[in-house]
């Protein structure tokens, strides 16, 4: 799929229309207007909400402004999950725009990580990339890259530059022709209903018999209960695409 520019572009340019409103208990000097924004699905909340922060800070007293955090229908939103994931996980059935409540007080320490600067996001993002490459290529590709390549990946994401990002990411998605795929498939399965953060397992793209594994094989292996007919009400999403159909 890495060659399929059209699909990659569509995935990259996925946007969620969002309406930010200030939490009712926040003390303001005047009334806070809601703020509307198109959020990129593949980015992180704290990376793309500078404008939101500025907007609401204008109506607040400076001493009231602490670290910003977001919440949807009572659930604090983890900034280290991609925006698209947060939406699909918590709000996929909601009417658009997605209504997010903005908080500046009472940071939910046990639910959220602090995010004092963009460096924290960058570190988290690079850690994910590195983890994925460890699974895909024993970290060989990411380690062979130069610092500036890493920077380009990050800048590509931060500035929403598709080409800039993919010029580097392409290398991370390649594998030598003599191998038939990655060493392991990097994936995480998030569940809306459980407390467990996510499911992650080592999974090879090719079975011991030589045949290619499918997504269905993966799901069967990772969460067999969901694949049986009794688990028929469990649905799988990837970039909001309903992949349940593929897995059955």
């Amino acid at each position: 799929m890495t060659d399929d520019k059209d699909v990659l572009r569509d995935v990259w340019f996925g946007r969620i229309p969002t309406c930010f409103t200030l939490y009712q208990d926040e003390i303001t000097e005047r009334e806070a207007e809601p703020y509307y924004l198109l959020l990129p699905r593949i980015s992180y909340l704290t990376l793309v909400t500078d404008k939101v922060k500025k907007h609401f800070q204008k109506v607040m007293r400076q001493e009231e402004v602490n670290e910003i955090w977001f919440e949807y229908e009572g659930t604090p939103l983890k900034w280290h999950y991609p925006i698209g994931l947060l939406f699909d996980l918590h709000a996929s059935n909601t009417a658009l725009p997605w209504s997010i409540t903005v908080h500046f007080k009472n940071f939910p320490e046990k639910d959220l990580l602090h995010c004092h600067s963009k460096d924290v996001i960058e570190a988290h993002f690079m850690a994910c990339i590195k983890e994925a490459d460890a699974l895909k290529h024993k970290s060989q590709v990411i380690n062979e890259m130069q610092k500036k390549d890493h920077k380009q990946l990050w800048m590509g994401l931060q500035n929403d530059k598709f080409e800039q990002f993919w010029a580097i990411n392409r290398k991370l998605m390649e594998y030598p022709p003599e191998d038939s795929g990655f060493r392991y498939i990097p994936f995480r399965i998030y569940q809306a209903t459980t407390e467990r953060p996510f499911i992650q397992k080592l999974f090879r793209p090719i079975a011991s018999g030589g045949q290619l594994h499918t997504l269905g094989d993966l799901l069967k292996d990772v969460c067999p209960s969901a694949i049986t007919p009794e688990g028929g009400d469990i649905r799988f999403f990837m970039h909001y695409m309903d992949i349940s159909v593929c897995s059955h």
Partner: protein
Amino acid sequence: MAMSSSLLWAVDIFGRVYTLSTVGQYWELCKDTQLEFKRVSAVKQCCWGIACDHQVYTYVFSGDVPIRYQEETYENQRWNPVGGFCEKLMPSDRWQWSDVSGLKHQQLDSFTLPSPHWEWESDWYVDENIGGEPTEKGGWTYAIDFPSTYTKDKKWNSCVRRRRWIRYRRYKSRDVWAKITSHDDPERLPDPFNDISIGGWEITDEPLGRLSVWAVSLQGRVWYRENVCHHNPEGSTWSLISTPGEVAQISCGSYDLLWATLWEGQAIVREGIDRNNPQGISWSTVESPSSDNGIMHVSVGVDVVWCITKDRKVWFRRGVNSHNPCGTSWIEMVGEMMMVNVGLNNQVWGIGCDDRTIYFRQGVTPSELSGKMWKAIVCGRESDRSQTGSSTSLLSAGCFFTDDIQNQTNTVIQGDADTSSDTELSSIPTNLSSTPPMGAAASSASSTGSQAAGAPASVTVDPLDSDQGEAPAASASDEKAHLESRKSTNPTPSTELQWTNIDLKEAHRHAVLSVSTFTETSSLSSLGMFSVGAEEQYGADEHPLWAWVSGGGCLVDLHSPLKWFAVPSGLSSSVQSLSLSITPAQTAAWRKQIFQQLSERTKRELENFRHYEQAVEQSVWVKTGMLQWWRNWKPHKWMDVRVALEQFTGSDGMRDSILFIYYMYHEEKKYIHVFLNEVTIIAEVLKEGKHSFALYTPERTKQRWPICLAATTEQEMHDWLSLLTMSCCESRRIQGPPSHHAIWSVSCKGDIFVSEPSPELEAEPHPMPCDQMFWRQVGGHLRLVECNNRGIVWGIGYDHTVWVHTGGYGGGFIQGLASSADNIYTQSDVKCVYIYENQRWNPVTGYSSRGLPTDRYMWSDASGLQECTKANTKPPSPQWSWVSDWYIDFSTSGGTDREGWQYAADFPASYHGHKTMKDFVRRRRWARSSLICQGTSWLHVGTDQPFVSISVGAFFQVWAVARDGSAFYRGSVSPKKPAGDCWYHIPSPQKQKLKQVSVGRTSVFVLDKNGNLWYRQGITPSYPQGSAWDHVSNNIRKMSVGPLDQVWVIADKVQGSHGLSCGTVCHRTGVQPMEPKGLAWDYGIGGGWEHVTVRGNASQAPRGTVPSESPPEPMESEGSGRKGQAERSRTPLMVSERQEVDSNAVNC
């Protein structure tokens, strides 16, 4: 079909012949299934085999080019005063019907077809042509007496005359097994055959398609088939080759290696095989690697030998090459095999001893001939699939929904014998009872006893299903019958409803979205799905057992991975993976589904919210790096520079970019910058062997001084090239494939560029200057490229192979993002690099490599000025890699002796191919082929010989000329099918070899090597090949037919009132729809012209005036004429100047 694929041939234990394509995933049953085979030996163009009747058969692929042979005979007559010319000849004369020499009696009816595999193309006809000149009607040529020189004109002293009769025969048995019949003396006929091996095509090119065919008879004698070549695919006779013992098996490599095994267990090696003696001279013996176990089987490649000893151990022979065909020693390899086969490029296949699986030897490279490991080929057979053909096609539409259900029913299926029977049946030859199983099958039955025994059992059990077996191609009605048969055999009530449900999308959606529907469907459909699962299941279980494999025609390309090792349905027990098997149709369906979902997502989430603010503002991004720059002050040299590409988005949302080059000038930091929207071309150049490229802007084109940058690695250069090219295209809003009106060009490096012409390009009186044209590179490597104005583009590579543009774009270094996902194929081109070995004669040692101090290098280039040794000579550029070792080139002009030497009195002088008393020096040319290989949007079109000229007409007529001077027409070329379907061979005008073809709107003109211009007559839409050649003119050097069918030529010699001019531009006047050949020549500028093309000129003369052609310009007065002459005479100078500078820019 991609011609770059090739086939692996194999025989299973039942004698059925299968092929596996290098791009395929399934074994396909050989088209001709009349016979069972014991052994096959394949090359690219054909396969020879020994059938179970111990007879030899050949299977010639139906290629693009017909196999035809011209028979000729002469009719001779003498003049006498009474009857004039008549059949009565003098007693001393030749036969009335004879061959060209007159020595052999040859009547028309004495010609018979050599075998039942030939047919006559037409009846006999008279050749009305002599030496390229048309004769009078009747085709008679005259002479004073036999034998003599014949002329087309009858003179007063012409006493005899003769004419040539011609008839073509065509080989018709293509894509079928053709039995090799023998006309030999029955006494000397070989007994039944036991083994066969073909190869040797690399020994010599003459005649075209020559093959060495070796066979072993049951009595252990070795036979060589004489005269096997392209136009004689069956060969002529068997020659007995004496051997030191009884031979069991034989193997012939693609070059001069030939090994055979003796019943006693030794191997014998043929020595003395070369281009003059492809049969070789003598045998030497090589002992078995193990004293207890003799050699059972041997297989050879170009310079490798593999063998199997009687204990099934595998051995590799070290040190084998042309000079030492016996090699030095054996090394034992891993694995136990029944047989091994060495194919193209020394690649190796083997058949496992226990499992009868075919293994491919991975990692065989020129540096590691013995490879790395055996990897099992796990491919299903097309025949397994075809039984479920209709259900498979259903799967492709609804593939995502079915397997879960299948899975549930698996357990039921396995216990059910009835359901599997018809699959099994049709995999058994239907004439099973009439053909006794061959030995191989019987012997192997021990290992697979249960399966072999199981098969016939089921045949007898179920008569209903056996009917099915005889009609394996299940049509719709068959399918239904099939269902009903199932119904009747299975007590569970079947629901036809579920069958129809499979391809209904709504049903699936239900199944998935609503739990209740889902469970209901699954329980009901278990039977409906049943047979799909059952057959696949069974097909998968029935692992093919192989008896023989031949890779002699199988080119394993290291650049495109094989899909033989991971096939979903092959040996897998998981029916799961089947639904996502990677057939293109399914991938396409899958992609479409993903795309649809993404579009729906976009629609849902964006459509009503486009007015929302974007969270991330577009801004500048920069790519920086270190490159070298060819500095623009003297002394010119490479200097390290920092380079930065800044890309920003304008207010209109378009991206634009600036390239900055920062350098130091006398300790001072400076920079130059280029706006990428001004760049006209970015091209790789060869400058001092660096990975360098040049950037041109209109200004720099005028200066002939591009910005040259070099990277340290090829990868780095390609990253920059790819990014810069993308940025240029983006800033010019050019994307996607080239348009139909694109202008194509090829650099002297073979790189292909395309430019989109703007309307201003031809706008009079102020056309857009040429230097402002933007050229972008298209991946690929060609020597010439030709197109029409409707998007059909064909090209010829350096190796004279033919390619058609698929409409893709990108490829080459332009990977990934700026490249189309479809229509990218692997293109390769081969170029030879030549060096010379020079020797001088001295009285003591004769010719030796010790020259005089003043002599050239003993290993040099053609000029002798550059030292070129075998070791230090490199491929043309870093993108090329060697694909052969150095070999002596015998085709050097001037001729060579048997060792390739050319002699001369001294360096440098003219060389000749034989030694005389006066020759003190000699040289010989060594050649080495190099290969470039890249993913491109060019698709190879197969030809049976190298091509030199190609032309594409306005109505998609593709005409080409092969190097041997014959013409070809490509059938069925259309925008939807740019590659067409097959070549029609068009006989060239008698005795003429063509060199150029040009196709206008409807006209087709060709030029032969003797300077005759011919027009193709009788071309109609229904018969686009035309019927005959019509002579238009002689004395032509080059020609060009334009889009209005206008004809322009370079005439060889034109007589003026004061002198003779050679190489003159001439225009054919009077060309009109009813007079396409035109009437006369109008002579233009001349003296030293070499080439003219008017293919771009489609500007019609204004209507109402003289139709078609505007009248020739009025004769200029002498004075103005001279002025014009003076002006024009500067042009050739300018051209040569430009060429020089160009070569500086885009280096040759």
